[in-house]
């Protein structure tokens, strides 16, 4: 079990909706995405697989290179592959941008 946090202060666009997608099951993860009360975006990851901090950083750097919403993202991960992580993030964004 490992906890990881990232900050993306440049993500300032106002977001008003909340999304909850995914499940905590083998090879998958649960994502809660909600408006951040502070400026910028913050990411809080709890993962069952230790030692992948750099891979998570790469995924979120890529995600926030396109997404600029001021959100809090909570992730409960049970070993999702990087591809599934991006799919779940896209799914959450689709919900809040509807």
């Amino acid at each position, binding site marked *: 079990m490992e906890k990881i946090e990232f900050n993306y202060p440049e993500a300032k666009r106002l977001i008003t909706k909340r999304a909850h997608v995914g499940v905590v099951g083998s090879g998958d993860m649960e994502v809660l995405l909600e408006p951040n009360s502070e400026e910028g975006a913050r990411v809080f990851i709890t993962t069952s697989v230790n030692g992948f901090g750099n891979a998570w950083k790469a995924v979120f750097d890529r995600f926030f290179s396109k997404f600029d919403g001021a959100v809090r993202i909570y992730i409960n991960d049970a070993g999702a592959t990087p591809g599934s992580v991006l*799919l779940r993030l*896209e799914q959450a964004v689709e919900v809040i941008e509807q």
Partner: protein
Amino acid sequence: MVGTLHVHDLIVLRTESAVISTQSDPACPYLNPNQRPWVVVRRGRISDGSILVGVRGSQRHERCAGFTRLSEVVETRRPDQLRLLFAENSRRKLQAFRTLSYLESHLAGLDMSWGPGGSLGYELASGIPAVRADSDLDFILFAPRKLEITEAQDLWRMISGAPGKVDALVETPFCGFSLQEFVTTSPGKILLRTSDGRVLGSKPWDLSKGEHS
């Protein structure tokens, strides 16, 4: 003769050196030469006589993905062939085994086949202890026909009454998906695990007709 192999099947290989790693090292280091080399079939296309397999070592982090030749397979067990009666008596008090016992008694009338996967399936097939005190039960339901949402809800409600956590995966002829997500999200998009990778979609029994988004 081993017949057709499917994802989640447990197989014994001729030798422990029959697995070629797809990760950094050329060999999968976790198979114990003193035990029969049991590995699990991973999701992916069978091509050119090769199948994707997953190797489990004695420690939680000892996992390795690789592939092997179909000709190396000497024995197979499907998840629906694995039941509590194969478990050692001393192991049956572990939560995952108690959960399996609950499912066996509550699913007796189900018209679809099902079985355990993950560490519990591996232990039942191989006899090698793999289940831990905090292991979930990976439950695989084979659903060749469409599961109606009410039917899925009833099933999930029953599963949720089990003594331990159940990670329930439904396998259609085209993909696998989480029963929990299907129940909570349907008819919205859910994560579909196909032989060609993962996609979001809402028609797990209709993937052949081209819905890939």
